[in-house]
């Protein structure tokens, strides 16, 4: 009889007892737990958006939306308050443009070098080193801009303001270089070796292969790195709050400007009473920032879809 138990297909039921009920219960419990955490993060985001929308609606009950979107003067705390957001958007766009002008070309060229030209050994420590740079706290960058770069720029541009858009923008650019370089490098490095060899086999030089085959093939990843970098610049707070000044005006690069983020910091840390219209501007500017980055992300998705070069 015991010989039979060992034969395939006729196993002894006494030796095999799985607790089906308990395992089903455990399965259900774990599923619920995971779902709870997944919904928690989504609900938190929803909550934030709801608060933004709620306070924004309250704000627009008192200030016409047209005045907000197209007004050119921003002075909320004053007796004759004005709520034209354009100077803040201008400040954000100016510092972001300066940062992008620094970070996008340098980041892309660094990525091409790291992926295509750097010897394997060098790449192995240069890339992590670059990524460490991305971990420097932005407050450090902010004071670096204010106390080091601005005086340095003062030697070139006499009459530069102590707080200015140029210095903050340049340092912000340095801050996003690692993001741009690292994400583009991943995309460029991921281009299959076969494509490079196809180029070489036609008598292409290394430069021609790198710039005319590999980079176009990695374009969607490179575009993603650009958008990520620009999004970081738009949302960056500490550097501009410290180094760009807090004047909501259409100043040139050498003058003070105020970005949307810097305004939120300035108002949040002051003694603004909850419920006042000044308090509500925090949310309305926050919502504007949110919409801007959302548009940026949607544009990038459209761009990536249209220009994706598959391989």
């Amino acid at each position, binding site marked *: 009889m015991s010989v039979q138990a060992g034969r395939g297909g006729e196993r002894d039921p006494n030796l095999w007892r799985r607790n089906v009920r308990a395992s089903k219960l455990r399965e259900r419990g774990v599923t619920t737990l995971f779902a709870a955490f997944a919904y928690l993060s989504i609900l938190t985001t929803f909550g934030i958006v709801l608060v933004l929308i709620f306070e924004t609606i309250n704000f627009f009950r008192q200030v016409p939306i047209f005045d907000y979107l197209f007004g050119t003067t921003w002075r909320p705390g004053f007796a004759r308050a004005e709520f034209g957001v354009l100077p803040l958007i201008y400040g954000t766009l100016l510092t972001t443009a300066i940062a992008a002008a620094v970070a996008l070309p340098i980041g892309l060229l660094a990525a091409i070098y790291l992926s295509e030209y750097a010897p394997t050994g060098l790449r192995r420590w240069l890339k992590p080193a670059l990524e460490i740079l991305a971990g420097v706290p932005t407050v450090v960058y902010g004071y670096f801009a204010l106390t080091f770069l601005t005086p340095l720029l003062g030697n070139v541009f006499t009459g530069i303001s102590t707080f200015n858009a140029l210095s903050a923008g340049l340092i912000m650019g340095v801050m996003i270089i690692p993001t741009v370089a690292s994400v583009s490098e991943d995309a460029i490095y991921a281009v299959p070796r076969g494509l*490079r*060899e*196809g*180029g070489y086999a036609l008598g292409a030089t290394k430069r021609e292969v790198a710039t005319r085959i590999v980079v176009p093939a990695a374009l969607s990843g490179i575009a993603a790195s650009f958008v990520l970098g620009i999004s970081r610049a738009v949302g960056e707070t500490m550097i501009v709050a410290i180094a760009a000044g807090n004047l909501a005006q259409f100043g040139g690069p050498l003058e003070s400007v105020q970005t949307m983020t810097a305004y939120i910091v300035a108002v949040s840390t002051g003694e603004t009473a909850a419920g006042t219209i000044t308090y509500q501007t925090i949310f309305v500017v926050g919502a504007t920032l949110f919409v801007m980055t959302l548009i940026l992300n949607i544009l990038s998705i459209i761009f990536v879809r249209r220009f994706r070069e598959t391989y």
Partner: protein
Amino acid sequence: MVNIRRIGEEQRVRETSKDVAKGGAQQTPESNGMTVEDLSAFYGSFKAVTDVNMQIKRNKVTALIGPSGCGKSTYIRCLNRMHEVIPGAYAEGKVALDGQDIYAKGADPVNIRRRIGMVFQKPNPFSKSIYENVAWGAKINGYRGDMDELVERSLKQAALWDEVKDRLKESGYSLSGGQQQRLVIARTLAVEPEVILMDEPASALDPVSTQKIEDTMEDLKKKYTVVIVTHNMQQAARISDYTGFFYIENMGDPGRLWEFDETSKMFSNPDRKETEDYVTGRFG
């Protein structure tokens, strides 16, 4: 003085063209096709192929066969200095194209690869349009002629024109695997190389696509010298004029060119027992 020199030159030119016209037999080996002498290939300290000597005849198809992992692909990549693209990989020995050593000091691998094109195992069209895929190589090599005409001619040579003539602007990736491989062949032909190396060009393709590629090869050898690595014995027998058999006797040894001869002899009456066992399907 001047006149005498010119006459001498003319004579030389005439002799050369006479040689070409006669073809084969009476030419010196160095002036005809490719000559490989004592070629060994390495990946870092690992020797993958050792001491290959081979005469690759002009306007003939030379097939390379043998079990997997015995160095055929490594060897064929040495013939246009593609092997050294892999970090740490290098080759020793001499490979001459029409008498010029492509491994000589000062020889430019970029120029060599233009003259000796290559088609890979996996179709690797560029992420560009069909037209651009064919035109790209010609463009970077400074082609000044009619590009549309060149693209059309190359696609026709690769037997792809009729299938793609109405969709030249579409991505190369919109094509099927077999079409992609013919696109890559067209791209290779467009830079007008002298030799075409093919590393298992049909291994990833269905029988119909394979047939189409084999048909094009019949045309190709009228103008080009072709070297092809293949695992398909019938294919080697069908399309090639010469066959080289690569083999590793003991595990861990580098690959060797075990036997090299005319295809008809290799498949009917080879000199070595391992060759016979392999071509008759007894192993491999």
